[in-house]
């Protein structure tokens, strides 16, 4: 843990967290303010959001203080290729489901991209494994548990 405080300037990550918390506080308060239903007596649906908004605001200010003092712990270096592959796999998953590609193909995309991000260099083989895994899960869900997973061209065959 390298917690040596940088004497000059603020800790950027802590500043970002502070800003995000303050924005969230404002959003929650704005949403509560624009609500239309009011309770007859006791507290209505807006009370808790105002409390939460206040707490978020205080936490944001605390992070602001932290930013100018010790800052957040310094993280380790990132292997950005790995993160990019994983992110790509997840976006592929969302796109595949969104475009009606079905669960099995989506599984194959996630499986192969994740394996690639953890250093395997056999994308085609992993895609095949993913297809088989997806098929097995789909059949278990539809036949055994009677739950439906998103269907695409492949799922309609069964």
């Amino acid at each position, binding site marked *: 843990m390298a917690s040596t405080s940088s004497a000059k300037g603020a800790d950027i*990550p802590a500043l970002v*967290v502070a800003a995000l*918390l303050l924005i*969230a506080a404002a*959003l*929650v308060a704005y*949403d*509560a303010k624009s*609500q*239309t*239903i009011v309770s007859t*007596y*006791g*507290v*209505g*649906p807006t009370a*808790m*959001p105002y409390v939460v908004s206040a*707490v978020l605001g205080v*936490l944001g200010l605390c992070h602001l203080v932290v930013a100018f003092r010790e800052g*957040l*712990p310094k993280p*380790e*270096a990132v*292997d*950005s290729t*790995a*993160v990019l*592959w*994983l*992110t790509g*796999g*997840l*976006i592929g*998953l*969302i796109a595949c*489901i969104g475009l009606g590609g079905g*669960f099995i193909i*989506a599984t194959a995309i*996630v*499986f*192969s991209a*994740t*394996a*690639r*991000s*953890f*250093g*395997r260099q056999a994308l085609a083989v*992993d895609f095949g*494994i*993913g297809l088989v895994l997806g098929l097995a*899960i789909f059949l278990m*869900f539809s036949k055994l*548990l*009677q*739950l*439906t*997973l*998103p269907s695409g061209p492949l799922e309609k065959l069964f």
Partner: protein
Amino acid sequence: MDTFNALMHGFSVAIEPSKLLFALVGVFLGTAVGVLPGIGPALTVALLLPVTFKLDPAGSLIMFAGIYYGGMYGGSTTAILINAPGESASLATALEGSKMAKAGRGGPALATSAIGSFVAGTIATLGLAFLAPWLVEVAVKFGPWDYFALMILAFVTVSATFGDSPLRGITSLAIGVTLGLIGIDRLTGQARLTFGVPELLDGVEVTTLAVGLFAVGEALYVASKRFRDPEEIVPIKGSLWMTKEDWKRSWAPWLRGTAFGFPIGALPAGGAEVPTFLSYSTEKKLCKYPDEFGKGAIEGVAGPEAANNASAAGTLVPLLTLGLPTSATAAIMLAGFQQYGLNPGPLLFAERPDLVWGLIASLFIANTMLVIINLPLIGLWVRLLAIPQPWLYAGILVFAAMGTLAVKASVVELSMLFVFGFLGFLMRRYDYPVAPMVVGLILGPMAEAQLRRALQISLGDPMILLENPGSAILLGLAFIGLVAPFVMSGLNRFKASED
């Protein structure tokens, strides 16, 4: 002798073949996910929530409890053999356990942790069985203001005990509570924080948040620092069995570990880290061979392992009697109760005694199953560690996608999974604990409901919270818990330098 009769009745439920099967599946799954790095009991139960939706509630809950107990057993195997604790609860075990394994004493280390877990689990489950009816009687008298104060206290302890910094813990909790606001207000039907997205009207699913934080976030985090040295499995050499000397040195730490673990788990103080480290340092002080510590002292495995399991059983006390979750797994188990329309608490003991006592009785059975499947089958569990990391995480993410899609098959839900995954990744990088967020999501709406109920009774006068002695004391404790870490930050620094 009411408790005894109730427990006996529970056993008659728990030994039904279907319940035994659920328990067996639970302990197998639990041990497996405990052994595997990157996947723990909280994530497993979260993934199983949508799958078990249509199954028998008692059976599913027995399975969840088996997973919880099994995860504690399995975590120690990983901690001892590859010095990579699967859960933070196994950190203390790894200290001495991995040294023992390197010295060729991996067998006895695994044995003392398994038998210690059994002893502690059994004693603590007995504690649960006898404490629960008593607590239920107290809880019957609780008003909504007391429940609200209790939840506030749990908020404070949960965010203070997970992680190093109370500020980051509370921030994580606050994000969870904020997420809990999203959706339709149950009392008035007012939509909150939905920004016109119809999918958000039902609120944020626990499964989606837990899977995003624990599966996607963890995978991103591990992938991002992949270039670090790979972990090595230490092969088990020599006998699995403990010598007479080992037994003599283990039994007292087991009992002391239980004595630390159960009360700390049962109080809404959250976390298994505190009792395991308390147990570790106590054994270090009491040990007759203090110079062995740091080189593989068996006491340093026996004590923390017992503490770890006892605290898991302890966590079930507030969960079952008050409906108050104090760990991530307990929070997700609460969601499991809720998906069947069951609300843990005094009412559940009165209305569904077969279910509650069947669950408690099955914990004894699960514990016995665990010690049996752990000792002779240890070779099987070790082989799990040989699964190549790329396939392991690829599989975890496939199951993550499956769990999310089984809850709600929509692009919005998957996008939330993606966002929570990145949030979990960033939180891990900057050392924010993620467990308080899950607790906040589940406990937040409950706390709000109790507060509003209390204020409806008092016609809007907030002083009702301070006029009732119960809630006043609990809120006072919460306030002390909140302020103390900041006041005593000087003390913390002292603690850190001692290490």
